[in-house]
């Protein structure tokens, strides 16, 4: 359980030119959940990530991870529970061969060799990059590098995996594959995934969506609920998945679509369930 309790954070806090990145934030995240955090640039997403990994500490309020308060003295304990993958793999890969980079974290934990090997293998397997484990990082595509970075985080066997905009530099196809892999991990290993993004289509695939705007929590709930508030989302510079917005347009024209519609497949099922069209097109 991650408990963010009344947290505020300001860069250069206390000075006249302090920048308030987060204001009075309350969030509880249960273990094993798929949570998307959305917000446009400058909404405080990245600051939240740094607070959850004990890179920064709150100016006000407190954070606990599985009951352990996030403080300077507990940072190693926190980081063994929470792993994070950043936007640009070039700035986080340390070693220059895939398997060795994935092993970097477990090596830091001082684990026995056999366990490191086993963790590396299963992390590579989970990200679908076992076949390139002996490749040199320079020779990889950006998508492969990002998978390597995620495998490196997985090898830490965290309770919570934070993905800090890992898809924003990737082409859409590679981004989709990455999200699929993250969902699969959650399903199979029960690991909590917190995905920071500004892609609404990606957020729609998660259990819960948290929306931040200028450092405040503005929405928090299942995607079906959050995306129903399309107008408010547009106001703060975010949009909604096309299927959701189209469904509400069609409904307003009197088409009786049933159920929560977030993805393309949802819309197809609802359209299929319509009395007449089903008969028309077989």
């Amino acid at each position, binding site marked *: 359980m991650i408990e963010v309790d009344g947290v505020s954070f300001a*860069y250069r806090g206390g000075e006249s*030119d302090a920048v308030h990145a987060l204001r009075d934030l309350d969030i509880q995240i249960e273990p094993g959940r798929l949570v998307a955090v959305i917000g446009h640039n400058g909404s405080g997403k990245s600051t939240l990530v740094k607070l959850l990994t004990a*890179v*920064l500490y709150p100016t006000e309020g407190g954070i606990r991870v599985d009951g352990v308060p996030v403080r300077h003295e507990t*940072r190693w304990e926190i980081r063994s529970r929470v792993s994070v993958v950043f936007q640009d793999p070039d700035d986080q890969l340390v070693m220059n061969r895939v398997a060795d980079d994935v092993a970097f974290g477990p090596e830091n934990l001082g684990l026995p060799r056999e366990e490191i090997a086993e963790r590396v293998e299963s992390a590579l397997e989970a990200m679908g990059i076992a076949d390139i484990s002996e490749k040199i990082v320079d020779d990889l595509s950006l998508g492969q590098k990002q998978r390597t970075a995620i495998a490196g985080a997985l090898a830490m066997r965290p309770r919570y995996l934070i993905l800090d905009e890992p898809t924003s530099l990737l082409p859409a196809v590679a981004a989709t594959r990455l999200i699929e892999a993250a969902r699969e991990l959650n399903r199979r290993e029960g690991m909590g995934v917190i995905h920071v993004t500004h892609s609404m289509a990606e957020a729609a695939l998660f259990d819960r969506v948290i929306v931040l705007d200028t450092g405040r929590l503005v929405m928090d709930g299942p995607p079906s609920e959050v995306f129903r508030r399309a107008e408010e989302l547009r106001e703060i510079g975010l949009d909604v998945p096309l299927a959701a917005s189209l469904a509400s347009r069609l409904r307003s024209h009197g088409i009786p679509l049933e159920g929560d519609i977030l993805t393309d497949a949802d819309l197809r099922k609802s359209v299929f369930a319509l009395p007449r069209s089903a008969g028309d097109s077989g």
Partner: protein
Amino acid sequence: MASGTGNERGSVTSFGTRQIVVAGVLGGIAVFLGATRLGFIPVPNLAGNATVMHVPAILGGALEGPIVGLLAGGIFGVFSFLQPEVPLFANPIIAIGPRLLIGVVAWAIFVGLRGISVDLAAAVSGVFGSLTNTVGVLGLAVVFGYLPPAAVVPIIPQAIAEAVLAAVVTVVVVRGVLLYRSGRTTAPEIEPDEEKRY
């Protein structure tokens, strides 16, 4: 030893993750300049080229302390031993020894003069960091018998060129890095009206 993490800048002499990374990055720039030959600028003299490969060590010393300067200089030294652009660097003592001192000298001067003016401190540490390199290498070359003392004379223009280059680049980079760290958003008006282009 393992003190200082991410966002704490430990004392100048600590040797933590940040020092390792910054020294590695600066060493990487030195290697990059050497391996791509970008760091060699043709100077009209017999030896042919002035180099800016020692500038990362100067910057490491000035901005991050003697340990980082020493390590960045060490990487430069090891590179020039492995890829000796001049035969005398095939001797590891000549290739590595003086380079270890570049950043330390730059640090001492930068810290000493910073109170007067950051630009001045950067320029002087650039010049003396550069001279540490030249004097150290040539001195050892004469001691080891690679060069007769007379051969030092034609290298003087190159040494001056290197010192000037190092001073200029150090001033500009120190300004850039300090500016980036300061978080300021707007520049002061600098140019007189008639020359203003923006």
